[in-house]
Structures are given as structure tokens and as C-alpha cells.
């Protein structure tokens, strides 16, 4: 192989804060220049990703079941959940808006769950399947993450703008809080994941298993 040596083979580790390549053969815990703690990989990446993913999943249920907002038009109040809003727009013929809401609020978190789970499982199994695509997937997950906040922002805007006393009044409902938490936790989960883990057990490394196993423990 013509691949240049990786940092771990040379006993080096890049400081995340100041970028100094530190010698870790003596297992120093701090960067000798700036004093930041040194990690060869993100600390506890897999466990944290899993934990945040599970938390997001746990909040995903109430986020979709509980109403996100209450629309009161001339006395007639109605709670609407995310899905009921989508259906309402769809039935009203506004399929484009329905599609946007559906993708931003339901599909994107769903995709994130699936993608992160896939990444985690493949990393834990030291799979060498489609490493490049998985890296792309991870970047995609990171990019789309905050778009799910669209819903939260819409509700926040509408709830603060539509205040016409008896005529029309929109109020947020607990569902939107859980939805916001889902988005936050999926983002945290994605942030906790270390994409370098995908590449850690490259076949030309003889002791690949031990290296990858060690990585999450740090």
C-alpha cells in the first residue's frame, strides 16, 4: 500500500484545540502547548451517540403523538399534531407544503435515526462495507440536522404573531418541545459520532481490532 502512515502508527495525536501534533507514546493527557486534553478519537463516541440517539428516539414518540400547537379561530379551538397538520394540508390540496412539512418534520428525523444506527452498527461490527458512502452519509446527516428545526421555528413564529384575542389565537403545545428535543438530541448524537472510526480498521493494519476497540473506550 502506498498510503502514508496514520498518526497512531507514529504515536502522534493532534490536539483538537491548537492543532499541535503531540507525542502520545507516554500517554500524556494534556497538550503540552495549550493544555487541552488529548484524544485520539472523540471521547466515548459510540456510547454517547447511542445514548443521544436513544434519547432522541424516546422523545420522538411524544413529539409525534402530542399536539404541537393549538389553533383557535373565532372560538373553535383545535389541537393539531405534526401528522394531522400534514394531512390537513394534503387534504386541502396544498401537497407541496404538506410534503415540506412531512420531509422536514417526520422524514428527516427518521432518516437520521436510520443513518446513525447504520453507522453505529457498521462501526461496531468493524465492517469494511462501503466506507466512503458511509462517510458521505455521515456528512449528509450533519448537514440536514438543523433543518428539522424548521417546525419549531414555524410554531414559535406563528404562536407569537397570531394573537388576535377572540378572533384567532395560536398557542404552542408540549409536542413541539419534544420535537425540539428530538432535533437537538439527533444533532448531539451526530456530533458525538466520530467518522474516523469508520476508517479505523483498515485491512492493511494487522492489529486493527485492538485499535478500534480501544478507541471508544477513551
Amino acid at each position: 500500500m502506498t498510503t502514508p502512515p496514520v498518526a497512531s502508527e507514529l504515536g502522534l495525536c493532534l490536539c483538537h484545540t491548537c492543532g499541535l501534533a503531540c507525542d502520545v507514546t507516554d500517554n500524556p493527557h494534556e497538550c503540552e502547548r495549550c493544555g487541552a486534553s488529548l484524544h485520539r478519537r472523540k471521547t466515548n463516541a459510540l456510547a454517547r451517540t447511542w445514548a443521544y440517539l436513544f434519547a432522541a428516539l424516546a422523545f420522538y414518540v411524544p413529539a409525534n403523538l402530542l399536539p404541537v400547537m393549538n389553533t383557535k379561530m373565532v372560538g373553535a379551538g383545535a389541537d393539531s399534531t405534526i401528522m394531522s397538520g400534514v394531512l390537513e394540508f394534503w387534504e386541502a390540496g396544498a401537497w407541496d407544503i404538506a410534503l415540506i412539512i412531512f420531509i422536514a418534520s417526520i422524514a428527516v428525523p427518521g432518516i437520521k435515526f436510520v443513518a446513525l444506527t447504520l453507522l453505529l452498527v457498521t462501526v461496531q461490527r468493524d465492517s469494511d462495507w462501503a466506507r466512503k458512502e458511509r462517510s458521505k452519509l455521515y456528512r449528509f446527516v450533519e448537514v440536514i440536522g438543523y433543518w428539522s428545526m424548521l417546525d419549531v421555528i414555524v410554531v414559535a413564529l406563528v404562536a407569537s404573531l397570531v394573537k388576535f384575542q377572540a378572533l384567532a389565537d395560536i398557542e404552542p403545545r408540549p409536542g413541539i418541545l419534544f420535537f425540539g428535543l428530538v432535533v437537538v438530541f439527533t444533532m448531539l448524537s451526530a456530533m458525538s459520532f466520530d467518522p474516523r472510526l469508520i476508517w479505523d480498521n483498515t485491512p492493511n493494519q494487522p492489529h486493527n481490532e485492538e485499535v478500534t476497540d480501544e478507541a471508544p473506550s477513551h
Partner: protein
Amino acid sequence: MKPQATDGPQAPGQASIKTRRFSVSLVWIVPIVAVLVGISLVVHSILQEGPTIIVNFKTGDGLTANKTEVKYRNVVVGHVSDVELSNDQKSVDATIKLSKQAETFTREDSQFWVVRPRIGAGGVSGIDTLLSGDYIGADIGHANGRAKNFKGLENPPPITYGEPGKRFTLHSQDLGSLDIGSPVYYRKIPVGQVVAYALDADGKGVNLELFIHAPNDAYVTENTRFWNASGIDLNIGANGFAVKTESLSSLLVGGIAFLAPPYSPNDQPATEEKTFELFDDQVTALAPPNGKAQYLSLRFDQALRGLKVDAPVEFLGMEIGKVVAINLDFDEKKRSFPVNVGIVIYPQRLGQAHTKMIKAMMHDPNDEAAGVRLMGTFIENGLRAQARNGNLLTGQLYIALDFYPKAEKVVFDPNARPVSIPTIPGSLEELQEKLQAMVDKINKLPVERIAGNLDSNLVELRKGLAQFNAKTLPGVQTTLADVSKTLQSASSTLAEDSPQREQLTQTLDELKRMSRSLRELSDYLGRHPESLIRGRPDNAAPADLQGPPRN
């Protein structure tokens, strides 16, 4: 994997052990908390989950699943979760999820109805639902039992449970113009309303349920009378023209008024659910109490055209009851069609007379047999019923109970029920009968004989007259001629130029002259009495004659 890592050959005795003290990362607290929050939500929603009930409505008008709310006192206590046709497809079943605190709405007698805008004569309600859409109104019942299926009301109940006030029942012959929601007035102030009405068990009357709001329910006393205040009371009398009505609204939707008669001492507020009678108008309502009714039967052998049910029954001119039934009967013995008239009398209407009579006769008003015996003695004394003409123009009849001591004796049957009072023919009929009897008598007169005699008498009279004409009259004529003559002669004698009269005048003149000379003589003699002896001197002056004053 982790213990494997620690036992790794690379750095067996390194200080990184302190991080291994927790075999599980602290980050797992986050999903645990998330799950706990989720569980708490589930538990909360399960705890908050109220009972589910099914209310059956006639139509699903205005009911939308997951949108229509159930409200009590304008607070949401549940919502409709499903609307579907009932199994027999004749009505609509609305599944309602009640909230936890609305558990009491599952009481058996809870009521549910759809609140829609309603505009009626009694008022306008549910205007807010015009904009907000219909909702289901609910009212908590009182029963201890719980139910799952309810029958939705078509109209909102006028009174909610637990409203302070009292319910009363009125009994009436018919509903009149009353309806649910018709107001109840006390001194023209609306104090309650009609909340329900239903036919009697036997269908012979209507029971109206009233609700009188507190604190005015205290004015409903044991002696209170209720009357129908619907419509206008027109009165034309000696004092002019009077229109009486409770209120304009009662004109349109009817109404009930109540008042205790002024002569009600020791009046106590009536107990809940007490039954009163509903009178037709204020006058009858406030009239002295009728007391116990007594049914009597009368049997007339004459046609009773003009006698109507409700015609008055009068006793010595006092109205004490009314006719309740008029039926034609067939008498097998006489082969005739008598008329059976049923009347009801209220002896208490006689007032003082009644109380005194009871006292005098030691009569117990509750002893039915004694009452019948009393009636028996009255009949002995000539109590008879008679259908009399109340109005000669319209021919309306009324029943008069009166004493006819000369009436034929009748056997009184004290065991017959209802008690039967013997009758005598009516006044007009009586007149007819008398006329009939007279005509009969006239018929019996020997008219022909009388006529014959009269005829011969007349013949003789004519003969007499002829004689008179022929004989007597000529004589009379001659006599009259004689008389005329006599009168003529008399007249001529007395005429002015008659010789007799001439002579008479002359005689009277002579007499005048004579009396003058006599006076002269007497005068002369008075002055010259010697002349009687010496005679008259020749030289006697004529002046002497004038000497003495003339008298």
C-alpha cells in the same frame, strides 16, 4: 470488549483506570431520563384518561370526530372521538372521551345534547356556536349508577342539575299553548319555567313539570294556585273594557302564573315535587277551593238540545258544579230513549252554607255513605234536577238543582253509584206541558152545542130586532114630532116680537110708574101728614115737593 481493552498488552498498569470505575458511561443518563419522561407522559395520559361513553343522537349534524368538544358550564370536559352510524342505521353514535375529572358525567341520568343556535319565541340561544361550531352540552346527573350509553337530547334541558330551586308538578286537562321553557310568573315576575311535560299514565291529562328558581320557590306554598296565563283576558263590563295579560312573551309562548289566595292562613312553603292543579284562568284559580267532588247522575226523559258538557250546575242559583257527560240511553221497559247526564258537584263551593250544614247535621264529609244518606233526605224533601234554559237566544241549557216540595215522591236508591237525583221536566217543557193540558181541556169543551145554542139565540135576537123596527120605531117617530111641535110653540111664545112679550113689557112699565107715584105719595105724606085729614092744599108749592132731601 472493555475488560479486554484494559487487559491489553500495551499499558497494563496505567492510570487511566480511574475512568473505568464506571463501566457504563454517564451519558446513558440522557436516554434514561428521556425514557422516564416518555413513561411519565404515558402514565400521565393514562391517569388523565377519563371514561369513554357513547351518546346516541338522531343526526350527526355539527358533530366532528376529534373536534367537537363536550362542555359543561362552558368548560371543556371531553371531546368527540368518533362519530358513526348506529347499528340499526337510524341514528348516530358519538363516542365521547371524557376527561378524568368528568368521570361524574357517566352517571346514569346525565344528559347530553348538541348546542346549536336556536331562535324561538322564548328567546335566542347558542349564538356563539354560529362561529365556533356546535358543541355537546352536558349535565351531571344525580344517580349513583354509571352508564356507558346515553341517549342524546334533541333540545337542551332548560334547567341544569344542582340549580337551586324546586320542581313542582302541575296537572292539567291539556297542554294548551305551553311548551318546555314557558315562563312561570309570580306577580308578573318570571321566576321559573316549564321543564317537562308528559301525558298521564292513563292519557287523561297532562302533567307539567315546573322549576322555580330559588329564592322565589319559597312563594310556592301549600295553598298556591297555578293558572294558565297564556293569551289575553278580555273583559267587557259595566266599568268598560279591560285587557289582562301576564306579559307580551306569555302571549306568544304561553305562561303559567301562580299566587296563593289571600285567605290562606298558616301557609307553609310547598315541598319539592308537590302536585298542583293547573287552572284555566286566574278567577277560577283563586276561587274558593272546590273541595271534594261528588259525581251524580241525572236521567232526563226529554231531549236536551243545548246542554253541553261543562254546562254549569246550579243549586238554588249558586254554581256548584258542571256537567261532565251526556249520554243517550235506552229504556227497555218504557221503550224510550232517556238521556243520562253525569254531573260533578263541589259541595264546598257553597261555602258557609256547607260548613254550617255539616255542623248542623253532624255530617262527616269523608263518610261517603253518610253523604249519600244526606242526599237521600234532600231528595225526600223535594230536591230535583231540572234542565233550564240559560239563554233564550242560544238555547243553552244548564242544570238546576232545586227543592220542589210538591214534586212527586221518588224512591231513592242509596246503593246506586253514582248517586242518582230524580229529575223534573225543564221549565220550557213544563210550559209546553201546561199549554198542552190547556189545549186538551179546551178540546174537551162542548163547543158544538155551545155554538148551536148561540146560533138559535142569535136568530131570536134578530126576530126581536125586526119587531122593534116595525112597531116601536114609528111610534117613537110620532112622539118625537109632537115634542118638536111643543118646542116650536114654546119658542114662538118666547120670541121678541110675540104679543105676550109686548104685553109683559107694558105691564112692567105700568108697574114702574105705579111704584113711582107710590113713592111720591109716601114722601108727601111724610112731610104733610095732616093732608091725610085735611086733604091737599091747593096752593101747595111745587117747591115743597123738593123740600125734604130725597133719600
